[in-house]
């Protein structure tokens, strides 16, 4: 790489915070005291779980939202609206379905007022570069997912941005398509054929980050902050099977499942404490399935998370949620990137359906404070019923509305499976079983 240290930073974020208003009046902090500098000539990755604020940081840089505290500078100027010289690639592609490939790509140039002939020439060049020559007059709905994202890339490249922002650009694609597109991007980048100076990519896929980035910022969740920064010095093209590569991936896995500094006596990985614990919707069926799989050959109660993610075709994020739910219920434990069955977990795998439900119910009331609270409230009330709003407002004191709804949904599904209580969706009432 070039000597980049003495150039003025493209992006300079200092102590940025961002909070969103919440139902109960207090604001929820999604991003806390984040520093980030992006210089020319590097690919920077923001890696983290959902809810770690990495997309929020991307949108602050894109000028779509403003930080609630701290400074965000682009080439030394405060960002207050989309700055010139930054283009974005979206997870959902964000193509205009009523415009052809060519019109979509021309959009940014049109906004800049580039003259028509010039516009066409540059758009065609970008389309050819990205490998979509011949599809100029197609509409997005006629293209496959991978080709649509190629249009998304061409649309960003055509304005020759200094910085290309990529918001989980490959996560809506199937594994094979994503890999091809990633490789193409890296090849073009290494050959210096991309008319861009730097890339910032947001992802929750650890291997993707290691494959593409020169520098990875690992985010921790609730509130989002930079947990660590990792430099990746492996030469391109990088090989997934290279031992160095594997080692780096494993170490990041371990870091992401690692116990955070013991601030509060919380369950590791799961944000919030007591009733305010955020529960991600994980299906009891999938939990039972994973427990059975772990108990059997070839794992015998212990499995490596990256391996498991590959075998089960799960995104790292989904697997984390699943493993953490099992950990919360004391059916499994996470240690150094491995998931290990507990004795109770082993017992669960051997039981029949009825006994499983009983075991699950006892663990649910013992280890999930919200379940215990709901059970107590239902028993105390003379009617043995309670409206969902009763618990929702309590949850909203601890977390954002979206998380509160997710948590309630999760506890409804777990409670139904454990036959702790019944729930009537029409009246939105909990009823004691």
């Amino acid at each position, binding site marked *: 790489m070039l000597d980049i240290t003495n150039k003025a930073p493209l992006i300079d974020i200092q102590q940025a915070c*961002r*909070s*969103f*208003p919440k139902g109960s009046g207090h*604001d929820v902090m999604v991003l806390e005291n984040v520093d980030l500098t992006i210089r020319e000539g590097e690919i920077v990755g923001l890696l983290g779980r959902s809810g770690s604020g990495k997309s929020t940081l991307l*949108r*602050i840089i*894109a*000028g*779509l*939202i*403003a*930080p*609630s505290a701290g400074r965000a500078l682009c080439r030394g100027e405060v*960002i*207050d*609206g*989309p700055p*010139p010289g*930054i*283009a*974005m690639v*979206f*997870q*959902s*592609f*964000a193509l*205009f*379905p*009523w*415009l*052809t490939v060519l019109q979509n790509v021309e*959009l*940014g140039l*049109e*906004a*800049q*007022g580039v003259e028509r002939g010039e516009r066409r020439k540059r758009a065609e060049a970008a389309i050819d570069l990205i490998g979509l020559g*011949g*599809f100029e*007059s*197609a*509409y*997005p*709905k*006629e*293209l*496959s997912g991978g080709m*649509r994202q190629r249009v998304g890339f061409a*649309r960003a490249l055509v*304005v020759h941005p200094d910085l290309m922002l990529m918001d989980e650009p490959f996560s809506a694609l199937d594994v094979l398509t994503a890999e091809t597109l990633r490789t193409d991007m890296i090849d073009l980048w290494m050959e210096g054929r991309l008319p861009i100076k730097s890339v910032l990519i947001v992802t929750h896929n650890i291997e993707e980050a290691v494959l593409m980035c020169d520098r990875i910022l690992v985010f921790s969740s609730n509130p989002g902050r930079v947990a660590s920064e990792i430099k990746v010095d492996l030469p391109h093209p990088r090989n997934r099977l290279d031992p160095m590569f594997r080692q780096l991936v494993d170490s990041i896995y371990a870091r992401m499942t690692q116990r955070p500094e013991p601030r509060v006596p919380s369950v590791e990985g799961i944000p919030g404490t007591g009733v305010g614990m955020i529960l991600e919707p994980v299906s009891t069926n999938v939990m039972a399935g994973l427990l059975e799989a772990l108990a059997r050959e070839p794992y015998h109660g212990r499995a490596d998370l990256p391996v498991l993610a590959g075998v089960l075709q799960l995104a790292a994020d989904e697997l984390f949620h699943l493993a953490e739910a099992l950990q919360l219920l004391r059916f499994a434990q996470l240690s150094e990137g491995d998931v290990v069955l507990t004795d109770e977990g082993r017992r669960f795998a051997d039981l029949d359906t009825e006994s499983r439900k009983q075991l699950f119910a006892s663990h649910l009331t013992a280890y999930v404070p919200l379940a215990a609270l709901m059970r107590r409230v239902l028993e105390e009330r003379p009617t043995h019923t309670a409206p969902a709003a009763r618990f929702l407002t309590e949850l909203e004191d601890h977390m954002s509305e979206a998380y509160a709804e997710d948590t309630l949904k999760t506890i409804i599904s777990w409670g139904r499976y454990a036959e702790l209580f019944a729930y009537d969706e*029409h009246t939105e009432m909990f009823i004691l079983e």
Partner: protein
Amino acid sequence: MLFPKHAPLALRRSALPTFWDVVALLLVIGLIVAVAYAAEATNEPLSALDAAPLSLDPSNLPLYALRTMLRMLAAIICSLIFTFIYATFAARSRRAEMVMVPVLDILQSVPILGFLTFTVTFFMNLFPGRVLGAELASVFAIFTSQAWNMTFSMYQSMRNQPKDLEEASASFHLSAWQRFWRLDVPFAMPGLVWNAMMSMSGGWFFVVASEAITVGDTTVTLPGVGSYVALAIRQQNIAAIGYAIAAMLAVIILYDQFLFRPLVAWADKFRFETTASTEEPTSWMLDLMRRSRLIAMLTAPLAWLARQVWSLRLPEFRPKAQKAGTRAVQSRLFDWLWLAVILAAGLYAALQSIVYLRDTIGWGDVATAVLDGCITLLRVVVLMAIATAVWVPVGVWIGLRPAIAEKVQPLAQFLAAFPANLAFPVFVVVIVRYDLNQHIWLSPLMILGTQWYILFNVIAGASAYPSELKEAARSFGIRGWRWWAKVILPGIFPYYVTGAITASGGSWNASIVAEVATWGNEQLSTPGLGSYIADATTKGDFQRVVLGIIVMCAFVTLFNRLVWRPLYTLGERRLRL
């Protein structure tokens, strides 16, 4: 599989004119002549209308029909412009939204025919002695029947734009103007076209009703299908009524084929979906326009102009990044001020209205109007119940048989568009001839035109019913009463409610022309809010017209809020498949 679409390269083909070019040429010439005719006719002095009185000679009908069509076209263009402006303001400004959306909601339930009284007078005074004034009044009446639901549709689309497209527009620096044409309008297009079609369906009723109107001493008769029928009624000419119905059928078919089919087929590309749909709407007219070199040549300047307009870089729009909670206090202060201003304006308006009405109207009049309102309400409820009992089973039967549904569905939509008031005389003749009880037999006229909305929505619902569910019901042996209650009715419920809302709203409006009917010298009338307003209009008693409108507005709004909206929410939340 991928089939890249290529735009027709119209200009590169051979120089010989194609068949399509000939057809296209005829259509273009026709359009130019129609515009010229309209310009000439509207500029005439009002006395010209009296100088050339209407005649029942059927050979005049094509010309009358043309004028009716042009009025309709003018109204729909006005509605579209109004929609763009009103919806944009309501969707973009939070403070404007607070007032504009509820106002729109109320406007939707104002009985348009009651309105005519004022608008005719107003526009006639605006252009004294010109036909233009009367024409504008008629166009305005149609406009008021069309604009609101189109505006609502656009407003809702603008509020529900996908976030990623909004972000893409901002991050690629589209100006507000560019964004309007690149995102706002295209995204709203499918809903807008559908609502324009529905508006048009409803509009025929009002164009016919507004062509021959008497307010106090003023009688305006604009040449058109509606006034032709009015004359036929006066002269008791049943054959002429038949001709008029035939002419109207032709007009509606023409509009459908030349305007809406192409529009629907064209708007299909704006549907926000990521997979190609299996069945695309087609239109021979759109194919013609795409294939014909001549049309391509004639529209080339228009397309160029449109491009220039779209890419105008008018106001440099730098979307500010969303602020987090700053200036919230200041903003709240402005909210209170704004609210105070609106409240003051509302109170002032109420005060003025009371002062205006108090001159001639006492509490007794209010009681009469409300009582009449109850009678009309009873009619609407009974008629809706009957229409439901008849058309739901029929609609389900048809909808479950795709081959039949395909043929019946366009017919039902067509019947919904047909202005039922043209057919009223036929019913009146029957009532007079057989000496039927007018208090009972005038009522069905109210729902004559609007019942079809129930039918075609139920057909649509039954057609869309998932076949797996039908098969599951059959394999579990669910039949009879249980099949209706558990299987099909919940499935079509949201569709039924959509149709029923339109039908009941339309019936209220129709009551103004349905509760009073004439045939030559025969006067049939039955008590109700409709006849109350109609009587007041003929007498030129503005205060009572206003009172009637207010009462009807209240009835319709309450009925919507208390009955239809809860049902609609129920359907959307629980039963949408």
